[in-house]
């Protein structure tokens, strides 16, 4: 049944795999048929955060029934380091281990269970070394994975000391486990050319291709990396899928058989990187109206033992340390702390959320200091014409937020509810309500310029069916659906006439990771370019065959139309084919206008900004710190939406994921450096019951000023940060107990326990007055 062959883009329509998802027929890597003799992998892991290996005896592992092969670093034929950018991530540890869980050796066996049991037979001696386990440890030891970096705008120290009011503060923001429902998994098959066909659950197939080739010391063209879909990624499969794929390739190469490596959840939670913890410290100068004169801010990210993507992540925290606010003068220092913990990595927002937490705390503290509603202080500090320069020199050109915030404030009845909450809080001794509106402005583009490129391959078959392939990967975000809509729109056909197929490095080479919310911006444009090339070829053919201007050929209603004459796309493709017209083309896109000089910390790193705001209302039980999110209103800017159903899904899903990060999801390590939040039984992502029944999400309907695909905007990451409103509302409820004279420190996640202690801090304030300060 064909859907209305109108323009497919812009229409709310289901995910391209929705029917397969609900039937269980959408295949993930572990669902692929098991090849005869297939081997399965487990790794032997370091029990120490930092130690020298003194002795490694794997004889009993080798002898364990069912074991096929055992490897250590010495068995890697090519490059040992599988780091994405800066060296430092050995596939298997060498003489020294640098985090608990680091793979020391790997086992291939007839089953995953056998491999896991065999691992326990290893006898390894360690000499423990001094370990830094926290940001504080690393700061004290001056240990960094990369040098500190700074952005400056104006003379901040002079301005702050001259400002009418000043505040200092600190906030610790914990990281987050990705908890993609499909854990890390990969599979490799040796090819007849001495190469490898690797199927990986990855956001970055090209990186997998390169790493596998380097580990095996073979040319890139011997390796094909493929991914049809991931069961969730969220940044956790950008670099972290690499070692899994390399391990399968290494064993496939050695054993000459296919190999699968599916990490058990516990290994995944221990061995793969997470969102960075951040310690944020600031001093801010402002006037009596709460307008910021200058901000001096330190952002210290807990990178773990290696750099991974921490260069860009801490940079992005710095790029978002202003969030939506004009700082006037600023010094923003980014530190990349080296700790003997797993190397932290990309996670939806890529440091941006941690940077925003700092400025949102600052704004609230200012509001309490001057005795005003934080919303008024937020509004007063928003970027506006004339007050539009960011600390990194980019001018904010589209002033979306002032109007968007006004509208949300009205639509959500913020002021009316604020009054109602006052009455409620007066009446209730133990229950207190909190309310907060927070904005998000998020920069769209990879901050590494050359990554902002994409390719696509379009094939038109002679029955009129189309196949599109591009460099982006599908992790549930709906990229394949949106690209399918673009292709359908370009040819005026229905979506089901367009197949979107697995991402493969042998179809589109040299791709960027599907990350930075850029998927549809980049690949949508590349796909459109490919479509236009095929259309041009068809139009030129039509012009010469039917003696019309190429512009006279229209693709609509599933037909090719020239004046009075109509063909189905299939009839016309067949005709063109017989006239030797090429019916396939590659497309390419590079993002215009962007540039950034990192040395100077100035430029235009972002093509544009995506914006949004949220209002959250919570009720807190002050006797226990338990709370409930009662209502959430969101207004979010996606430009001209490519698919409102998918965009709303991204907004809601991002919000709830962000809410989990800031409330119940608590990453914890013990004093020996072991992750103790290592299972869903002790690391709690939100359930359906945590989502407010009253959850109102609207799209802010306004086309992008920049020339993006059909004037849409990226949507993957920005909504996560809308959840800062939940944290701010919890803090507001705490502040209510002091009649809003004091904002307690509320590190994240704001678990019931942290809320409880924040409330005790409020009690102390009520007893002793302001001397407690902002801790």
């Amino acid at each position, binding site marked *: 049944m064909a859907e209305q062959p109108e323009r497919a883009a812009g229409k709310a329509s*289901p*995910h391209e795999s*929705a*029917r*397969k*998802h*609900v*039937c*269980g*027929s*959408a295949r993930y890597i*572990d*669902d692929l048929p098991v090849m005869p003799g297939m081997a399965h992998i487990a790794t032997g892991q370091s029990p120490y955060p930092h130690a020298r290996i003194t002795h490694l005896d794997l004889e009993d592992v080798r002898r364990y029934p069912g074991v096929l092969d055992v490897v250590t670093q010495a068995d890697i034929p090519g490059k040992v380091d599988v780091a994405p950018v800066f060296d430092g991530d050995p596939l298997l540890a060498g003489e020294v281990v640098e985090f608990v869980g680091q793979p020391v050796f790997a086992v291939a066996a007839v089953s995953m269970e056998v491999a896991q049991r065999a691992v326990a037979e290893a006898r390894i001696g360690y000499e423990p070394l001094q370990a830094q386990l926290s940001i504080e440890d690393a700061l004290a030891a001056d240990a960094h994975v990369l040098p500190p970096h700074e952005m400056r705008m104006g003379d901040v120290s002079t301005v702050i000391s001259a400002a009418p009011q000043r505040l200092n503060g600190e906030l610790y923001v914990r990281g987050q486990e*990705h908890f*993609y*429902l*499909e*854990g890390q998994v990969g599979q490799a098959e040796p090819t007849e050319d001495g190469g490898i066909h690797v199927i990986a659950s990855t956001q970055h197939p090209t990186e997998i291709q390169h790493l596998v080739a380097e580990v095996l010391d073979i040319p890139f063209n011997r390796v094909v990396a493929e991914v049809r*879909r*991931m*069961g*969730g*990624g969220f940044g956790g499969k950008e670099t972290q899928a690499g070692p899994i794929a390399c391990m399968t390739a290494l064993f496939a190469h050695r054993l000459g058989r296919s190999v699968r490596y599916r990490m*058990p*959840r516990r290994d995944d939670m221990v061995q793969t990187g997470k969102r960075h913890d951040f310690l944020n410290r600031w001093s801010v100068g402002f006037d009596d109206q709460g307008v910021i004169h200058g901000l001096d801010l330190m952002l210290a990210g807990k990178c773990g033992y290696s750099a991974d993507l921490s260069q860009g992540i801490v940079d992005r925290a710095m790029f978002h340390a202003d969030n939506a606010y004009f700082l006037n003068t600023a010094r923003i220092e980014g530190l990349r702390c080296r700790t003997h913990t797993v190397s932290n990595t990309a996670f939806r927002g890529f440091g941006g959320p941690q940077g925003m937490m700092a400025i949102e705390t600052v704004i609230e503290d200012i509001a309490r200091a001057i005795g005003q509603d934080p919303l008024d202080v937020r509004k007063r500090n928003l970027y506006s014409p004339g007050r539009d320069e960011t600390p990194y020199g980019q001018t904010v050109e589209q002033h979306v937020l002032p109007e968007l915030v006004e509208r949300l404030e009205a639509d959500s009845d913020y002021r009316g509810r604020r009054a109602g909450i006052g009455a409620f809080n007066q009446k*209730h001794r*133990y*229950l207190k309500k909190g309310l907060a509106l927070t904005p998000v402005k998020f920069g769209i583009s990879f901050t590494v310029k050359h990554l902002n490129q994409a390719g696509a391959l379009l094939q038109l078959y002679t029955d009129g069916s189309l196949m599109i392939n591009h460099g982006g990967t599908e*992790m*549930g*975000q709906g990229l394949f659906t949106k690209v399918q809509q673009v292709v359908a729109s370009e040819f005026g056909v229905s979506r089901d006439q367009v197949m979107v197929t697995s991402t493969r490095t042998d179809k589109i080479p040299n791709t960027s990771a599907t990350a930075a919310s850029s998927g549809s911006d980049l690949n949508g444009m590349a796909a459109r370019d490919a479509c236009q090339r095929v259309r041009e070829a068809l139009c030129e053919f039509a012009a010469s065959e039917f003696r019309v201007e190429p512009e006279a050929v229209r693709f609509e209603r599933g037909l090719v139309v020239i004046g009075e004459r109509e063909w189905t796309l299939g009839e016309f493709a067949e005709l063109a084919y017989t006239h030797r017209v090429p019916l396939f083309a590659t497309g390419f896109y590079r993002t215009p206008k962007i540039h950034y000089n990192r040395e100077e910390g100035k430029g235009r790193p972002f093509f544009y900004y995506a914006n949004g705001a949220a209002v959250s209302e919570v009720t807190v*039980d002050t*006797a*226990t710190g338990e709370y*409930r999110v009662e209502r959430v209103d969101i207004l979010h800017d996606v430009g001209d939406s490519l698919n409102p159903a*998918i965009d709303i*899904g991204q907004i*809601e*899903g*991002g919000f*709830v*994921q962000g809410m989990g990060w800031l409330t*119940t999801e*608590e990453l*914890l390590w013990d004093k020996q450096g072991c992750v*103790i939040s290592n*299972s*869903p*039984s*002790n690391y709690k992502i*939100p*359930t*359906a*019951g945590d*989502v407010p*029944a009253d*959850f109102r999400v609207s799209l802010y309907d306004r086309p992008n000023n920049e020339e993006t695909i059909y004037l849409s905007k990226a949507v993957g990451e920005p909504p996560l940060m809308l959840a800062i409103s939940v944290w701010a509302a919890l803090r507001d409820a705490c502040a209510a107990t002091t009649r809003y004279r004091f904002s307690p420190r509320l590190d994240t996640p704001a*678990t019931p*326990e942290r809320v*409880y202690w924040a409330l005790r801090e409020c009690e102390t304030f009520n007893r002793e007055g302001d001397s407690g300060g902002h801790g």
Partner: protein
Amino acid sequence: MGDRFVRLKVNNRLYDSGDEAPDRTLLAFLRNQCGLTGTKEGCASGDCGACTVMVHDERGEKPRSYTVNSCICPAESLRDQSVTTVEGLGGDGVHGELHPVQEAMVACDGSQCGFCTPGFVMSLATLHEEVRDKGMPEHPRKAVLDAISGNLCRCTGYRPIVEAGIRALNNPDFLTRNGTEPVSGAPLSGSMEAPNEPCSFWQPGTEAELQGLLSANPEARLVAGGTDLMLEHTQLFRRLPKLIDLNRVEALRRIELGPEHIDIGAAVTYTEMETAFADIAPELVRMLERLGSRQIRNRGTIGGNIGNASPIADMPPFLLVMDAELVIRDARGNSRTEPLYEFYQDYKQTTLQPGEYIALVRIDRPRPGQWLRLHKLSKRYEDDITTVMGAFLWDAETGLRVAYGGMAAVPARAWRCEQVINYGGTAIPALDDLTIERACAALNETFSPIGDVRASADYRQAMAASLLGRACRGLKAFASGEEPEEELHHHG
């Protein structure tokens, strides 16, 4: 090991396992033996629900369907039951008609990455089976939330899934359409009987059989729901070579509601308790609604909760204030009775001797005029392990009884605290501020909790007092007929 096969009915077909493995999970059976890969492994610990399938219990008068986490359910334990997986509901994603739940999930954009989706579909489809039998629930949203309380989704934020669940319930076609005939019930060709070979997964039907097996196999482990035991296999990769399944021992499966006492068989599930106690102890049922998830409650048993002696098990604080007694039997059929508070010795240690098993739990029947309050604290409201659980029971005869989970190495009564409160007499609670303060001080003397992944020791200590304070205020209001103080409402 031999030529004994597990034989299961899945989606109305018979499947054999290739070999015997008593600890093989249903998930492994479905994926590896049946090739049914629609059911996913997300965590292998019963926490995420991606492996949810529907089990049909056609024994007894009323056949019923319920969800289980197939990742921690021993396949053997379902020998004479049948299973429906996502592949058994509707089409294949390209052809065929969808089940109304599947249709609603598509229409509401309930899937993004799709990995958790089959689990949600099975939870919601099972709710449909139930609604078909029992009629529309009073609060459809609450019923949907309950059904999916053990399903995690990391992409959607749940709103569209909840909407799909409600929409499908309201689908007027649903009761009449062919596609929604009860998925169980088609006649089988072939025999369900497993070949009568020596085996290592036993399903005794009587206590005498159980006792015989215990004496012959002292090293065998007892399994009921398996929601805890199976984690040794799926998380630590240990083998469980000999298992005795308690689920078929009729005497252990009963709840006897006597006029004075209630006897709860050790193999009674939480779900069964929710039904049995709906009118007798609604406060207990409210607590049970937060114990694990629907999938866990369908399998987990009271005997398991007591026997594994976790300091944060959710049933013991309630049972302790009820002065519960355990009836414990051994392989020779000897029986002894022991108060629950004496059963717990130390962390994960009980008085249970090798060869002994918990047969049943006996409590006094809750009486009118009694006042019960159970307060569970956890990081997450649903499906989370307890940080601190406070249980408070008052009646005129005995005064206030107080017990806690999460405050010590074992679940424990707060005897000193009770003495302080009941000092002036049990009939009228004299709960002045000074008494409450003294009672809290007594708690501090009694308990020195630990800090762990769930909370700090200080928070636990503070919460014991806070929950006691709230209970005392609640009791005062109860005694004086006043409105109790308002508390957080979940699932509003």
